[in-house]
């Protein structure tokens, strides 16, 4: 077990974590437990959705973004900004001003990341025509990882075309290379609204290596920009701004913004539990005739990303307002054709099986049967006092040797009542789960 998520996008800070178990209750893959008074991540099961970060009341979970100072390792510093960033500000803050401030904060060029959407959409339609239906969007990395871990039979439905961010990054890489700028002098950075995108850049799936050099936390960066704005930081205007964006591009990260461009019967589903519900029925093959599925882990899609601080509905509204003022196509489409292909293909995405009980099926069956018997003993309240998210999860942990029957406070109380378990033993068990000093408090 480790203290970081699978792709090292989040880290639990042991000195801040009080083991309150809020995170454990929301993890869609039950990847979290409380042990010795701290949250612990089963890294193999984590899908980098960030739900644990979102709910943590103690700010004990840290986003493992890149150190901002590293941008100065490069002579040319390009920041790829998602449209959701502008919607973090009240509508009265001019976009031009935001761009200028980004320049003052250290970047030499800033680019709207959804620029590549215009050339991508035709290709997506071509792809969907010929692929196994329904095609599942490759946009949200948390959804891709959810499918890998919980719905392995559906991996072949994931669209094998990379999302816009990677095409925009390629565009910059190739453009600077053609201009004769040495490889090491260009740093491409992505301003991220979520940790799933960090995972996607740092450990991409589908046999691809991202040219993006670093990821900047949008929450952190918003504060920097807003502070500069409030303090009226003087701007020199030295930044080169590439803000070309079509209305399609602006709306792409909002719910329905991607599916709206796909021909045929499409559905747009946002929010982790909605996505899981839908994938369950899709796996049973109960849905016919759907061509394309836009699935996003966050409610209101990226407007509800964990690093988007503003209310998600207001954020989505701002994006729609921005889109209403933008043209249908932007001017750089031809330029994109010159420097990059409209699409980048990726390899088949491999499933990432959860191994609930055992790799060997006979051993797994035995353990599962024992777990089912154990579950009969437990109260079914899913109280979490055992350090596992549910009675079912505790039963699984026990048969794998990772917990014990007496971890259940209901059974323990029963054993104590019968005089079968001494008090000291019961306290020791609680200390193993909730930490050594937890029961020493003086009131």
């Amino acid at each position, binding site marked *: 077990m480790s203290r970081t998520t699978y792709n090292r996008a989040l880290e639990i800070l042991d000195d801040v974590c009080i083991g309150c178990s809020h995170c454990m209750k929301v993890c869609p893959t039950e990847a979290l437990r409380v042990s010795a008074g701290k949250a612990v991540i089963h890294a193999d099961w984590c899908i980098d959705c960030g739900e644990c970060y979102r709910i943590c009341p103690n700010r004990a979970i840290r986003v493992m973004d890149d150190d901002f100072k590293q941008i100065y390792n490069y002579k040319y510093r390009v920041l790829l900004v998602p449209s959701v960033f502008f919607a973090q500000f009240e509508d009265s803050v001019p976009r031009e001003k935001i761009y200028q401030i980004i320049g003052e904060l250290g970047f030499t060029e800033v680019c709207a990341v959804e620029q590549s959407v215009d050339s991508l959409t035709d290709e997506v339609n071509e792809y969907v025509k010929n692929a196994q239906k329904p095609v599942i969007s490759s946009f949200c990395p948390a959804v891709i990882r959810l499918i890998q871990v919980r719905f*392995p039979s559906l991996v072949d439905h994931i669209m094998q075309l990379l999302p816009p961010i990677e095409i925009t990054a390629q565009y910059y890489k190739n453009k600077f290379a053609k201009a004769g700028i040495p490889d090491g002098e260009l740093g491409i950075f992505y301003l991220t609204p979520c940790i799933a995108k960090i995972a996607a850049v740092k450990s991409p799936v589908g046999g691809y290596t991202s040219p993006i050099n670093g990821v900047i936390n949008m929450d952190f960066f918003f504060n920097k920009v807003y502070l500069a704005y409030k303090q009226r930081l003087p701007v020199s205007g030295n930044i080169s701004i590439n803000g070309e964006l079509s209305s399609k591009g602006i709306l792409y990260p909002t719910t329905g913004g991607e599916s709206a461009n796909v021909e045929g019967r499409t559905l747009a589903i946002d929010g982790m539990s909605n996505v899981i519900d839908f994938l369950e029925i899709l796996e049973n*093959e109960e849905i016919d005739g759907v061509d394309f599925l836009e699935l996003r882990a966050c409610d209101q899609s990226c407007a509800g990303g964990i690093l988007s601080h503003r209310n998600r509905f207001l954020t989505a509204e701002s994006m729609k307002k921005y889109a209403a003022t933008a043209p249908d196509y932007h001017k750089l489409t031809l330029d994109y054709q010159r420097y990059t292909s409209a699409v980048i293909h990726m390899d088949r995405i491999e499933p990432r099986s959860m191994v609930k009980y055992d790799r060997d099926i006979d051993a797994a*069956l035995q353990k599962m049967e024992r777990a089912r018997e154990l579950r009969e003993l437990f109260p079914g309240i899913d109280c979490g006092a055992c350090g596992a998210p549910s009675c079912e999860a505790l039963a699984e942990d026990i048969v794998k040797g990772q917990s014990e029957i007496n971890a259940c406070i209901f059974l323990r109380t029963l054993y104590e009542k019968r005089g079968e378990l001494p008090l000291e033993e019961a306290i020791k068990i609680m200390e193993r789960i909730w930490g050594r000093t937890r029961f020493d408090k003086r009131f």
Partner: protein
Amino acid sequence: MNLEYKVEGGDFTSAGLASSQIKKILKQLNVDPAVIKRVVIALYEAEVNIVAHAYRGVIKAQIDGGGINLTLEDEGPGIPDVEMAMTPGFSTASKAVREMGFGAGMGLPNISENADDFKIDTIVGQGTTLRIGIKFR
């Protein structure tokens, strides 16, 4: 491992419960997703047939390292001509059932296609028992 589920005739909104539960178990056992898909399709069709055509039934599943054996035993009208019922496209489904999206006459052929072993025993006026076997490897 042995599992048992009850099915009520006419209760379309609960149909699919057994197949969802068994799917979950097979996923936890790391059975090949392609095999799971076959089990789910076969079981779901058979489950819906009880709901659509019989009065009530019991589904029994027996899982071991080699595969899964499903027995679906119902009380119902039985099938007068099994060979005819097995013909793709043959259906006696009522208009109401067709309006719910069932009744294409593809259920039994689909089960047969996805099963390694498939057997129907039926007595008209009493009921039908389906035996479906699917191997994991």
